[in-house]
């Protein structure tokens, strides 16, 4: 079972890889976790992870800059239905558009725009940084057996506002409901960082490695 973590010059791939290896080990799942910038490896992978740290436009440019990568991801996920997990900006890239600093085009796999979080309460700091709980809107395999009392680690100033409410799986409360988890078909995305979310994070990663949508 090959899991490809896509290397496109964004994010802390080393710790993401280690978290996936730990989750597999803790849950005795046979998993071959590989960080790769090779579209052929992504095409051949059983599961695909797109991490991302930084600004939307920068990350999109980074992804565009890897020849054939978006085509390989699209073929594996959209055509062949491989399970896909986007993390933080990697999740935001699923949207139609990102509106951070400049307007840029996303993958368009989950309809909607990535917009600034604007809490009504001026006391609330931006970035939304730290540990917060998830409010489940519907069940999802990746959140199976994860108690709602557990916390996830967030660090972001923008979030994905979905067009189709059915794509929204969980929110987190930060003044208003902020998008925390989206999913559609074999595609899932977390605004928080499972690789930095201790118990909740490792449980979610294990669920992803087991997921057979």
């Amino acid at each position, binding site marked *: 079972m090959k899991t490809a973590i896509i290397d496109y010059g964004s994010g*802390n791939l*080393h*710790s993401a890889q*280690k*978290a996936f290896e*730990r989750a597999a080990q803790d849950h005795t799942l046979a998993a071959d976790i590989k960080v790769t910038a090779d579209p052929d490896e992504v095409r051949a992978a059983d599961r695909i992870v797109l991490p991302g*740290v*930084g*600004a939307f436009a*920068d990350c999109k440019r980074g992804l565009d800059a890897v020849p054939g990568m978006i085509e390989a991801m699209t073929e594996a996920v959209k055509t062949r239905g491989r399970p896909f997990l986007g993390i933080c900006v990697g999740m935001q890239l699923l949207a139609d558009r990102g509106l951070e600093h400049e307007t840029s085009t996303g993958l368009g796999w989950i309809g909607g725009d990535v917009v600034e979080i604007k809490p009504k309460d001026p006391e*609330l*700091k*931006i*970035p*939304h*940084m*730290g*540990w*917060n*709980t998830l409010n489940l809107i519907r069940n999802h395999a990746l959140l199976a057996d994860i108690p709602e*009392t*557990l*916390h996830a*680690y*967030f*660090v*972001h*100033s923008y979030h994905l506002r979905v067009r189709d409410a059915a794509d929204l799986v969980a929110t987190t*409360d*930060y003044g208003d409901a902020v998008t925390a988890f989206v999913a559609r078909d074999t595609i899932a995305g977390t605004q928080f*960082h499972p*690789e*930095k*979310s*201790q*118990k*909740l*994070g*490792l449980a979610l990663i294990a669920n992803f490695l087991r997921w057979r949508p």
Partner: protein
Amino acid sequence: MLKVRVIPCLDVKDGRVVKGVQFVDLIDAGDPVQSAMAYDAAGADELCFLDITASHENRGTLMDVVRRTAEACFMPLTVGGGVRTIEDIRNLLLAGADKVSIMTAAVFDRDFVNRAAEKFGNQCIVVAIDAKKVSQDGEADRWEIFTHGGRKPTGIDAIDYARDVTARGAGELLLTSMDRDGTKVGYDLALTRAIADAVSVPVIASGGVGTLQHMVEGIRDGHASAVLAASIFHFGHHTIREAKTALQTAGLPVRMD
């Protein structure tokens, strides 16, 4: 609801923890990775390494520490100390740091904050502010930025500086009162509140923690989003859990996962 964060900070020199760390079940108290794992298991919300290695040649040991910590601890890690170039930041992030704290380099070249934030995103750029009260009794409170461990004044007003580096892209401020650092008499709450109220980003209070009540005050009265402490945890005076219980008892939201 977003929880307030409790952040233990480890001073690391040439790859080893200095100031000592005492844990009941810790095999090697001088190994930062062992300490990090103990704090991870204890429920720390984040971890901070401050590198005080004097020579640049020994920086490699820090990278190794960061790498090994990121392999074992699945929680956010901030690393600071001697960060001067974009390359320094890149190396720390690649090794496994989630946030990098910049101090002196930001004071002397503020554009460095812009460049760092543009390159890596605001969320991973922490600006560390060492401030000292310069107003006399009877005057309105005024704090200045100091460098070199609080020895060198810069003439820069701390509140103006905090606003400026935030506008330039700092995603968080790590605020240390040089008057209080090491005193155990509590954070400089007036300073913490003045900075926290002046900026839109989270502020981490640091410098002066001696009791758990000081942490409560840092959040409640200082308006900080997180509290950082070193010796109170390292010497086994209090556990992370005790700190969180104190915060919770005071009605502040904490994570007890």
